[in-house]
């Protein structure tokens, strides 16, 4: 059966309770996958894709894959995803160890300075008429501090922890 590959984790990564996810392990790497029943629309799995990744990232680094990454079977996942991309995947997992992404949606960007000071990295997300949106790469131990800072801001939404979707292409911060 076709597999939907959601993200890459370390081989020993715990799975959340009652999760449809299972791990396909190759050496020290594992792919978190779900089975795709025949005829199932991948677009319908977009919100579950994000929810499953958010559940995973609470227990350690996750490299999120683009929605709609499909593999024929477990062998294809091991050979064409994990073994073929091993160097890049290990590099990303090592980079993301200890940090998570959080989003803050605010009406005015006034007051986000305290968060920026807390963050390892910052990214500006597409905004709409109602909100300015920013992504922050935050150390896990600072998560509750960040949440409290946002709670004090006026009409701000805090979303996190998320996998580091917005920081996969910015290695220069660490000089790698």
């Amino acid at each position: 059966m076709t597999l939907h590959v959601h993200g890459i984790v370390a081989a020993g990564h715990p799975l959340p309770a009652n999760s449809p996810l299972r791990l396909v392990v190759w050496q020290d790497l594992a792919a978190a996958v779900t089975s795709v029943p025949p005829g199932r629309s991948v677009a319908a799995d977009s919100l579950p894709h994000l929810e499953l990744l958010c559940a995973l990232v609470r227990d350690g680094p996750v490299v999120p894959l683009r929605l709609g990454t499909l593999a024929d079977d477990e062998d294809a996942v091991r050979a064409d995803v994990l073994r073929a991309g091993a160097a890049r995947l290990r590099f990303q997992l090592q980079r993301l160890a200890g940090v998570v992404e959080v989003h803050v949606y605010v009406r005015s960007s006034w007051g986000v300075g305290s968060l920026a000071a807390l963050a390892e990295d910052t990214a500006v997300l597409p905004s709409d008429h109602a909100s300015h949106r920013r992504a922050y790469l935050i150390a896990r131990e600072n998560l509750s501090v960040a949440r409290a800072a946002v709670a004090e801001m006026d009409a701000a939404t805090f979303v996190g922890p998320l996998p580091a979707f917005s920081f996969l292409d910015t290695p220069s911060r660490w000089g790698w």
Partner: protein
Amino acid sequence: MTAPVTPGGLAETLNILLDKGLVIDATVRVSVIGIEILTIEAKIVIASVDTYIRYLEAMHRLDLTRRTATTIPPPGTQGLLGTHGLLPMAVPVPIAPPNPAAVPLENELE
């Protein structure tokens, strides 16, 4: 440490992150479906077909009007000092009165 994702924010977050994530090099056995093709493009196609049909309908009405008109009046004076504008006078387009059965009256709405 356990900081649950804000449930209300996740749909908005999904829209932002929909096309992000590491892209695996496609092979014979592994593929990455273009989510833009799956969702966004489908909506655009539906919207453009609708717009195109409306356009055709409008052109058709305009064409009928032109055929029935015997003469097109010359452009009238428009600007300062009696200059002629670049645009010809607008061709009147008949608009069918709204069907009273299809349009609810205001008092019915109350």
